[in-house]
């Protein structure tokens, strides 16, 4: 039950992330999440920010792998690559928050990825903020919004939601969307991200 993680090569890890292999994902969590927690502590973050950072960094990595069609070459160990990326993502977060500016200036900012990743950082942060707020909603609203984004026909949606009329469906849809958008608008991380974190257009 408490067995130690196996060792995996960089290629195995990259492939495992692409295929969402549970063994590889568990390995990444077991080996690197504690290190991300330590890093956050060192760089003036709150403990609960470590999980957000871990998820954002992994999502950025997913984008990088996709951009390279699965052929992402890592010249370092996966550990130093991933932690370097977490550090970069963290410093991008710091840039969004005035209270961290002073802390940020204490550290050198060095990208290990080569190419800047403002776009990936913005999109993945946005993605996580939406999911976090969606999960705060009631199950019926979560179901409604998922169906809405899948663009299911109205009749099918009404049936699945046990609603009797298209007006009832519309009212429910509007109420759920309004609730979600209010939650997002009130999310301080969203405010910071959209005010300061939008990627610059080339």
């Amino acid at each position, binding site marked *: *039950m*408490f067995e130690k993680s196996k060792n995996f090569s960089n290629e195995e890890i990259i492939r495992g992330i692409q295929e*969402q292999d*549970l063994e590889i*994902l*568990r390995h990444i*969590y*077991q080996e690197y*999440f504690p290190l991300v927690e330590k890093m956050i502590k060192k760089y003036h973050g709150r403990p609960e920010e470590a*999980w957000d950072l*871990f*998820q954002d960094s*992994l*999502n950025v990595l*997913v984008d990088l792998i996709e951009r390279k069609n699965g052929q992402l070459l890592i010249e370092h160990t996966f550990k130093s690559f991933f932690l370097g990326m977490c550090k970069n993502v963290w410093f991008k977060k710091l840039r969004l928050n005035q209270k961290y500016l002073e802390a940020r200036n204490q550290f050198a900012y060095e990208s290990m990825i080569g190419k800047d990743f403002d776009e990936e950082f913005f999109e993945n942060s*946005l*993605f*996580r903020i*939406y*999911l976090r707020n969606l*999960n*705060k*909603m*009631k*199950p*019926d609203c*979560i*179901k409604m*919004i*998922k*169906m809405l*984004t899948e663009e299911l026909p109205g009749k099918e949606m009404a049936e*699945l939601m*046990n609603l009797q009329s298209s007006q009832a469906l*519309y009212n429910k*849809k*509007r109420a759920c*969307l*309004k*609730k*979600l*958008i209010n939650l*997002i*608008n009130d999310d301080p991380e969203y405010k910071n991200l959209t005010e300061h974190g939008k990627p610059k257009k080339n």
Partner: protein
Amino acid sequence: MENLRKIEMYLKGELEEDDLWEFKRALETDPQLAHDLHAYIELKRVMVQTKKIDLMQKLDDIRKSETKKTRFLGLPVYSAVAAALLLLATIGGGILLNYSGNQHQQLFEQYYAAESGSFGLRSDNSTIEQTVAQGLKSYEEGDFKNAIDAFNKAPDNLMGKLYRGLSMIELGKYDLAIGDFESIINHNDNLFVDQAHWYLALTYLKLDQTDKAEEQFSLIAADRSVYRTKAQKILQDLKNK
């Protein structure tokens, strides 16, 4: 989101020329409309990333199961291991789980994640009976016994039934949990049927009642349940055992 109908028609390209012109003009003068349109587009952009949503769900499940391991019986891992060894020694090895039983436990641990009770408290308090709200609060605090006491006072409330079932799981009273989940499923016309099917299936898995578990997972896998993908995966795992 007062203008949802128009926003949807605009995005689907269904606005007639005059209405389209009016809509575009309104976008320039009505900041609320512009904001709602932007939010709607943003939401759709996020929600189409189903692969990433799956990845986040898997990571979340891993985190929950790992956190459970490190807090086993509220003890640090090594103390917990020692406690477990002591317990095994006491039992004298008389009870050994067979291979498939072990696998079912692993699947249960992998997929069972305590449902958050906080959503019911955060929103729409007015529609939830006060006792159920109190029960959800106790549930959220991990005080499952008090949660059950509160839910017992509102026996017809379906949300209360769902969380009473989940509290029973947390206390290891699986047979009682089954009763609550079945009652929600039999009622049918409510918002908690998906969850009831899911937790009923997991409870059967936990009890090694594989046929019943498979039957439930098959129902979920064939439906548009939010648990469909997970159910399909478990069925595959069970088939490969």
